[in-house]
């Protein structure tokens, strides 16, 4: 997905460097025909390039191997054991995965994760799109509004969670005081099973919309002006211009936003941890909260690792489905 046409270019240069006739403009520029000597220089240059390249890549490649590739491999391996830190790990085959299928708390956590995701992704997408549309015109007031909408991005999800826990305090939080002033019923927010999920969604939505607004705004502003003007000349209303000109052209950006949001939503942790710890009565008990508890509170590393592999598989499959859907959509256009 991230490879632009340019990314294919490195395929071609090798011939250029290897072939003597076409390549090495530096050598040719240096002087008249020197025969074997220049072959030696080209050879030395190739060796120098390879040496420098390997040295340049060494720190990152070692780091990625040791702190990403190896742990990924180990996660799968640990997932097939009953490791619990106290006793030596034993291979137990698929038992962890079988256990997941019958573990009601796993099913509940998976359900909570999916509920969170289907609430979070469309809300953030629609809000950020709406805000981007609202601020499409380049003007001074729009720059100010954009800055204000973007401000929560500067806050960590954890601090956003802490702040909203304060604002949504059931006794005398600002939000409940406002509701009271409007003669609306006060809510228990994070304290009640019905509203806990909403309470952990609010800070995440609030923090993220500004960021995705910027991405969508950039996409909207990249739509060629001529298209919009042509449509307006043909008598289209601004609303129709959005519906039939801008939105279709925004599809690649929208797809990217939805994929990123989905991946992020399936692994939310910070604000839930600080607001509810998964409660009350497991109302906000997402998979990552469950994995964290199993691994670092109960030290059931084997089962927790198996769950993290399952979550990886889930995200992988969801991304593939989204990609296929998007591709099919693209072909139809």
């Amino acid at each position, binding site marked *: *997905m991230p490879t*632009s046409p*340019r*990314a294919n270019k*490195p395929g071609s*240069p*090798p011939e250029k*460097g290897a072939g003597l006739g076409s390549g090495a403009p*530096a050598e040719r520029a240096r002087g008249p025909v020197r025969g074997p000597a220049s072959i030696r220089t080209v050879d030395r240059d190739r060796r120098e*390039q390879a040496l*420098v*390249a*390997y040295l*340049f*890549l060494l*720190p*990152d*490649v070692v780091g990625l191997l040791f702190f990403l590739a190896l742990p*990924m491999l*180990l*996660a799968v391996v*640990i997932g097939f054991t009953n490791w619990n830190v106290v006793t030596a790990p034993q291979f137990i085959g698929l038992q962890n995965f079988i256990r997941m299928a019958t573990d009601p708390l796993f099913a509940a956590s998976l359900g909570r994760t999916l509920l969170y995701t289907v609430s979070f992704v469309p809300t953030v997408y629609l809000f950020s799109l709406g*805000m981007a549309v*609202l*601020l499409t015109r380049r003007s001074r007031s729009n720059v100010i*509004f954009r800055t*204000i*909408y*973007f*401000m929560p991005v*500067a806050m*960590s999800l*954890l*601090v956003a969670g*802490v*702040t909203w826990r*304060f604002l949504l*305090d059931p*006794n*005398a939080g*600002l939000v409940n005081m406002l509701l009271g*002033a409007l003669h609306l019923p006060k809510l228990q927010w994070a304290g009640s099973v019905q509203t806990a999920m909403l309470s952990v969604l609010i800070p995440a939505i*609030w923090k993220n919309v500004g*960021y995705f607004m*910027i*991405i969508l705004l*950039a996409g909207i502003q*990249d739509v060629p002006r001529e298209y919009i003007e042509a449509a307006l000349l043909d008598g289209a209303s601004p609303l129709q211009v959005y519906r039939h000109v801008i939105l279709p052209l925004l599809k690649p950006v929208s797809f990217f936003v939805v994929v990123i949001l989905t*991946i992020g939503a399936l*692994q939310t942790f*910070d604000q839930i*941890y*600080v607001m509810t710890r998964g409660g009350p009565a497991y109302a906000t008990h997402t998979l990552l909260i469950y*994995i964290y508890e199993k691994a*670092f509170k109960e030290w059931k590393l084997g089962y*927790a*690792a198996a769950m*993290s592999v399952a*979550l*990886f598989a889930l995200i992988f499959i969801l991304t593939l489905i989204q990609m296929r859907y998007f591709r099919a959509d693209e072909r139809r256009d």
Partner: protein
Amino acid sequence: MKIERTKKAVGVGTWYAAALLLALVFAVPFLWMFLSALKPANEIFVNPPILISSHYSLANFGRVFQQAPFGRYLFNSFVVSAVVTVAGLIFHSMSGYALARLEFPGRNFLFIGILSTLMVPFYTILIPLAVIVRHLGWMNTYWALIIPAIPHAFGIFWLRQFFLGLPRDLEDAARIDGASRVGIFLFVALPLARPVLAALAVFFFLANWDAFLWPLIATSRPEMRVVQVGIQAYTGEHGNAWELIMAASLIAILPTLFLFFLLQRFIVASARMTGLKG
């Protein structure tokens, strides 16, 4: 004609109302955090809310540092974020340059290998990483917070894309002048990459300053806690000291807010960079 004008005025009016209402939703939590950080404890939960108080003071900020080693948390967060950012930029620009500009056997293989690590989600490697770090004896050290955070394919990818776009003539000219490959990288390519490096620096610094889950697991001693984890020092069994939590939160977001206003251009650029050219 007149109807058209009124229609337009109503449209603009609705637009402004919507934009302002949204602005309130985004600004009020900040404002409330700020005011609460200045209030004495007994004015925090008063109904109706106190907006103008004669008791506003900076005393809470002092107590934040007295009741927990908050200065140490800030220092830890700063050291970790700064070191990861600088080391990451150095290593990633080296890797990105090699992948974009140097020819060597196995280049495509390495590039695809590096790119595929982008698919590895953090929560999946969380448990093995904790095991590895424990075995290395790094728990409760800066090593645990810094080293695993450095390797990141995202930065490598973006710098490679940037270096691919540089005109080759610049390097050829330097080569004719006898510059070495390392010299070209240091004195021709890197200076041109400054805007990308700045955008990535903002991105890395914020990501590390805001990191929560890994520091929560990798540290347990108070003197090794980072800000995001340390904020919870003011919550307790007998209730939360909200005025202190808000003061600590305000301090925690100051560096990011500062970066945000100072470098808004780069932050917007890094947001666009993440989103565009998919």
